[in-house]
């Protein structure tokens, strides 16, 4: 199976690339940093002996980015798996932040994924089997004053994947959506984790690959985040407004 991983140079994307390569997948790795993505690719080729192509492209580049990833995936004979462990946060992601920051957060966390899936969907439908895997965030379970645009983008992404899952009914495409809690990546490094230890991105990557053939819908990782997020939604506004999350 050929798979494309968008956001493959570090954290969850790198762990996922490694797990897929260990299972014999041929890969197209996409990330903005050329040196980082080349280092990941070299490591995977040497350790696992799989075919790995790289695309150093910025999702902010819109059509040029789409053209570039299409070109490289075609070189590999197309892809059947699309994985989006891409994400970015900003220090000043609050109402009243710079428009450029908000635009970038929205593009990286939501629009780039929607555009890429839209672009590749017809190709995936032609495949005998295909899978699209997205990654949300527990931050999207309830809007807060911090990470406002990031949370909104991730909640939008959750909704989009819900739509995709229904659209995929009757096709050869499986749609999966994971909601990770704190992961031990640079995104969460130094963040307040409220006594819940960050989980290993490798453990999540293993779970994703293990469940690729299953119709799991939305899955929280670790599983205890589901009741926490559900409970958070029911906290009364009079109390929630006072919380510093």
């Amino acid at each position, binding site marked *: 199976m050929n798979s494309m991983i968008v956001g493959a140079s570090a954290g969850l994307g790198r762990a996922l690339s490694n797990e897929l390569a260990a299972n014999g997948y041929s890969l197209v790795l996409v990330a903005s940093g050329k040196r980082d993505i080349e*280092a*990941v690719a*070299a*490591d995977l080729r040497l350790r696992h002996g799989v075919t790995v192509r790289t695309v150093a492209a910025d999702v902010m580049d819109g059509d040029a980015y789409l053209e570039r990833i299409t070109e490289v995936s075609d070189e590999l004979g197309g892809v059947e798996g699309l994985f989006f462990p891409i994400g970015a946060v900003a*220090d000043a992601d609050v109402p009243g932040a710079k428009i450029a920051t908000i635009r970038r957060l929205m593009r990286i966390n939501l629009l780039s994924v929607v555009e890429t899936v839209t672009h590749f969907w017809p190709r995936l439908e032609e495949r005998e089997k295909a899978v699209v895997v997205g990654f949300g965030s527990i931050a999207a379970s309830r809007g807060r004053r911090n990470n406002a645009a990031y949370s909104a983008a991730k909640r939008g992404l959750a909704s989009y994947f819900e739509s995709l899952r229904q659209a995929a009914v009757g096709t050869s495409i499986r749609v999966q959506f994971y909601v990770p809690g704190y992961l031990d990546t*640079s*995104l969460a*490094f130094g963040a307040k984790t409220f006594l819940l230890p960050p989980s290993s991105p490798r453990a999540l990557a293993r779970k994703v690959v293990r469940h690729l053939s299953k119709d799991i819908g939305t899955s929280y990782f670790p599983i205890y985040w589901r009741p926490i997020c559900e409970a958070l939604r029911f906290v009364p506004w009079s109390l929630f407004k006072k919380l510093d999350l």
Partner: protein
Amino acid sequence: MRKDPVIKRHFISFDGGVRQDAFCQRPDRYHTVERISGSTPTIARGGGYSYSAASFSEESLVVDMRCFNRILAFDPQTGIVEVEAGMTVASLLEFVAPRGFWLPLFPGYPEITIGGCIGANVHGKNPYRHGAFAQRVVDITLYHPAYGTRRICHDTEGEIFELTCGGYGLTGVILSASLRLQPLTGVQAVTMQTPVRNLAEGLEATRQASRKHEFAYSFHEISPFPKTFGRGCVNGSDILSGSVLSGKIIPKYSPITPESRALFPYSVWGGGRTKAIEQVYWLLEASCRRIKKENLFRFVFPFAANRKYFIFYGRTGLAEYQVIIPDEKAEKFLSEAEKIILDNRMEGVMGSMKLFRGRQQLLRYEKDGLCVTFDFARTEGTLNSLPLLDRLVMDIGGLPNLIKDSRIPREVVAACYPELGNTRDALRNYDPDRLFRSELSKRLGL
């Protein structure tokens, strides 16, 4: 976007001797490392297994390099592998051993990183035959804000290359390095054990074993009891040519960290307890066979399966004294060191010996002679007596290992390392602002 996250962390040297809070960053992309500015003192950190505080300082930003752990290139024809600095030696062994290569001078703990091996110029089980780590380094990719990212080797930028190998991370952040591997003929080792009654017997048997076997080292009981002081075993080992493994090269093990090593509130070692544990150990040893077959991992990294040894030192930690003694003065050193330990009732736990061969330069722990290691429980009495060993080492022309001692004073280093001043000058010439600093460099006035 989000600034590179920095957190405040509590750091402990592996021997438990230095504890400091410092700001820490954990980059996972090259551009994050290259955003290190020239305005804040900085020091790179790998696994954190140095006994001295070589990878942190309360004044420096600590750059945790463990995300940089990829294999970048490997040529099976030449046996040259290029790896990132944060790769552990176990991870490297896992990759190269099935391809018929290894490094016979891996240090004794599997979670030590390649950057750490270069910075401390580590050695393995028979430095007499295999030398020290610097001899295996072909080139280094080094980042320093004043010079950017450069690939340096002995032929180009020779001075900086030499300063970096065994330079304790003071020339910049090592991003990656190419290493010259050695062919591996099997993945099991056979060890012949020779019991010895004292250090003098151990010395003679170690000398003989070094000539006969690819690996040779001794270990001894050094708790302060005259009757049993120095009894031990000399191990002579060879790789079993053509041996294969059915399981994994790297079995499951539970890594120890400087923090987990120090979790136990009290030291189990010390006083009569050491003696009691050693009695049981020798009783069990007596019933064991004198020829042992081990898989490569257990042979290369004996402490991976013996984490209790370190945990037993507890929160207060251990004091390791490792020194190379000129061969002709080895007997004198051993008898005088024994006298110091016994007279002062120093809390000795384990001693070890191996022969060493190398040319001393800059601050590298390399010299011809006998490498002697003493591990003590870190008690006040022992710490007060260590200057007596310092004096003996200075008188005898020994070379203490700076990475194994978080205490050793600058005056002792100045007396034992003739190039301390040259190293200081070379570092200042290369980097007038002395951006890369650690507690170790501060202690040595570098």
